[in-house]
């Protein structure tokens, strides 16, 4: 990134302090809709989160609900441009080492205490550093964190780190009140039970197994906002009951994995409902067949290529996911930065798959079976079971017998983490940048007995080198070169067999406005969401 461009970015960021809000109201007015104060948004949260303190718990449902209570310094557009949130502007020094955030000066926590640079520095350097593994890995690169005045935070990095800003979304680094955590065990402090943030909604009530209620925060820093009086998250464990709740109007919105993909066509057909699949660009989950390279014959690149060519990703996207998400083309999702469209995995071709298996020395026996491989079914709902059945069928076509094993979420996580599997399905968030969300699956330094590391055990020194170069690259252009080369190597070696760039349907009653505006979708603060009469 050139200096002038960086300066420009800072300037536009400052201007954008008003920009997005104005644009939104204009959009609404263009459609003849005036934001309306009042009303309660009833929606669903599933599974029920254990606590609502971001950092202490970072599960999807926690981030969705607590994203209304807490805020980050910045937020991200669908194209992953940073937009001001608690920081009204920021500048990056020419050597890319110093980040200066100018904080808004009228921000209050829900207990009435003003938010200052102290809280921000505490959140970054102490709180998330201690409790959140993902933040810890990145924030260790910070050399100094200083507050020259109560509304300015200056972070100095040990070395340039281009994707740094992506770590300041609320889902990665929520700003927490220092005075409620400092000096205590952050995981057991009373504030974990009654979360206090700066967001447009404050925590009001939680009847476990029943509902969570968030109330409008009257002292919110945007005058006149939020528009809603309250947001109620109902806990509904059965997917068919969730669909019914939406159909009968008992809830106005569902999100994430609430509705099974195969239920969406019927809901699309209902005139009062809107089905959106946007709002996952920041996360861009990518799914793949997780292969354990230590188990023969999966260590053989030809066998992985064969499996990859034996599956029809279009079928999976159209018939199993009903076009929610799209076929993966390489390890970096097309909505993640530095995706190289020219690096593509070889297409569906069972004949080629069989030739590859022949070449690998796997000949069919009398029953036509070349190899028997175990497959741990991902226990996250009906659609994953259907996927496993489809895989079994299509692999059988080329002579690979897939033996399905069922399990529950606890056993799945442990067995993947302990490398006790042959194949399974896995999907991980990419967090906008391959350094943040892709690298971890392929570099040999991250081969760990922990879920969501390089559990497959793939190792290629050139790939390690390229990911390191991309990580430390000072400019976006340097990084792009390294990422392009690594994508070209990975599509040849298929260390994991990518399936889908996933998305999740946000389905809402047409009275709900602005449900998805950002690259983080339903995780956004919802200060601009309103209900038309």
């Amino acid at each position, binding site marked *: 990134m050139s200096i002038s461009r960086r300066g420009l970015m800072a300037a536009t960021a400052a201007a954008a302090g008003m920009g997005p809000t104005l644009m939104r109201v204009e959009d609404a007015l263009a459609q003849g809709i005036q934001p309306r104060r009042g009303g309660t948004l*009833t929606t669903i949260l599933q599974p029920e989160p254990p606590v609502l303190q971001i950092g202490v718990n970072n599960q999807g449902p926690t981030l969705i609900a607590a994203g209304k209570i807490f805020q980050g310094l910045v937020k991200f557009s669908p194209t992953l441009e940073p937009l001001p949130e608690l920081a009204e502007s920021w500048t990056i020094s020419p050597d890319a080492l110093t980040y200066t955030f100018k904080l808004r000066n009228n921000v209050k926590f829900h207990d009435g205490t003003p938010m200052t640079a102290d809280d921000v520095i505490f959140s970054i350097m102490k709180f998330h550093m201690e409790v959140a593994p993902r933040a*810890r890995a990145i924030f260790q690169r910070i050399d100094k964190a200083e507050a020259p005045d109560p509304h300015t935070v200056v972070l100095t990095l040990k070395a340039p780190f281009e994707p740094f800003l992506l770590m300041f979304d609320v889902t990665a680094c929520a700003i927490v009140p220092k005075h409620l955590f400092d000096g205590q065990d952050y995981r057991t402090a009373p504030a974990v039970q009654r979360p206090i943030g700066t967001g447009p909604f404050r925590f009001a009530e939680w*009847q*476990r197994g029943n509902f969570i209620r968030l109330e409008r925060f009257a002292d919110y820093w945007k005058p006149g906002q939020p528009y809603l009086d309250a947001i109620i998250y109902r806990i509904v464990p059965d997917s068919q009951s969730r669909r019914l709740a939406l159909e009968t109007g008992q809830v106005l919105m569902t999100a994430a994995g609430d509705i099974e993909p195969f239920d969406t066509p019927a809901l699309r057909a209902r005139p009062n409902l809107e089905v959106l699949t946007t709002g996952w660009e920041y996360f861009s989950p990518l799914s793949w067949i997780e292969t354990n390279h230590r188990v023969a014959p999966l260590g053989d690149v030809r066998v992985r290529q064969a499996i990859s060519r034996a599956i029809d990703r279009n079928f999976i996207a159209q018939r199993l996911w009903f076009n929610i998400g799209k076929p993966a083309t390489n390890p970096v999702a097309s909505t993640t930065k530095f995706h190289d469209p020219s690096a593509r995995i070889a297409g569906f071709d069972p004949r080629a798959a069989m030739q590859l298996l022949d070449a690998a020395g796997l000949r069919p026996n009398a029953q036509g079976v070349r190899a028997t491989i175990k497959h741990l079914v991902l226990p996250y709902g009906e659609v994953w079971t259907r996927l496993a059945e489809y895989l079994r069928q299509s692999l059988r076509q080329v002579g690979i017998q897939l033996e399905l094993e069922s399990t529950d979420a606890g056993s799945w*996580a442990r067995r993947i983490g302990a490398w006790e599997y042959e194949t399974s399905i896995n999907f991980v968030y990419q967090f906008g940048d391959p350094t943040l969300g892709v690298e971890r699956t392929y570099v040999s330094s991250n081969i760990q007995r922990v879920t969501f590391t390089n559990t497959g055990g793939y190792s290629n020194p050139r790939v390690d080198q390229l990911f390191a170069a991309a990580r430390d690259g000072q400019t976006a252009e340097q990084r792009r070169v390294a990422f392009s080369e690594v994508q070209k190597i990975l599509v040849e070696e298929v260390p994991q067999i990518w399936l889908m760039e996933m998305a999740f349907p946000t389905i809402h009653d047409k009275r709900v406005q602005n449900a998805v505006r950002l690259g983080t979708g339903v995780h956004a603060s919802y200060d601009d969401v309103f209900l038309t009469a």
Partner: protein
Amino acid sequence: MDPAKLPGFLAQRLVKAAIVVLAIVVCNFFLIHAAPGDPASVIAGQSGAADERFLQQLRTQFGLDQPLHVQLWIYVKGVLTLDLGFSHRQQMPVSTLIMDRLPATLLLTGAAFAFAITLGITLGTLAARRVGTWADSVITVLALTFYATPLFWVGLMLVLFFSVWLEWLPSFGMMSVGANLAGLALVLDVAKHLLLPALTLGLFYMAVYARLTRATMLEVADQDFVKTARAKGVPEGQVVRRHVLRNALLPVITFAGIQAGQLIGGSILVETVFAWPGIGRLAFEALLARDYPVLMGVFFATSVMVVLFNLLTDLLYAVVDPRVEVA
């Protein structure tokens, strides 16, 4: 029953019960820890990112870094002082979590129980008295249908009919959230939400009681003392109530005792389908999350219930049939 024997009987049974419950606690402990995975790996799996230090921190916080026998000793010591432990996952004492969810479950299962017993015995009696007529056939067919139909299907059909088509009743939840109801309005609101799940849960047991009552009443009605009662001119209503039904009730009580023991744990499916915030779901979710203290706490509460209702059933036998002695 000899009232003088009662205190001794009770004391003896309670001591036995305590030993049984303690044995169950120890068995549960080992069973639960035998399941693969632990709370730390579950949380790591759900968070989408983890490192060794994170797992280690969680295991230390949850006390999982201690040897198993030490963990067992800590737990048993706690249970003996009625301290069910702390859910580190949810940052709450287990007893609070259970007490929060217990009323919802007791309301649901209690309503289902009352419905099943009353309607079951009434229908069974009616069928037995009109044996061979169309009324008997209708009741028998109904009872057989509900006996053979899976719970979740009944639930789904009830929801389709009453919530989706007729739009009379809500399809899930325990009350209208955010409506700020109080007094009679609140009671009515909860009753509306309660109707479908209680019906779903109760229909199976209703069928069981109806079939059981009908069968035993027909058996008793043929016995000599009933003929004698009729011969000496006791009015028919009294014969049915005092002589037939009372003697026919023993197997029903046995079965009711078993059902009552399941009042806490027996409604996971219905609680899930109807999003009822009860204890069955608490246990199920604790199992999936490997939240050991919560799961053991629910098991403990359930086993205490079973033991208590067994004791109550034995006492009831003696009340209904004086020939049965407590011993």
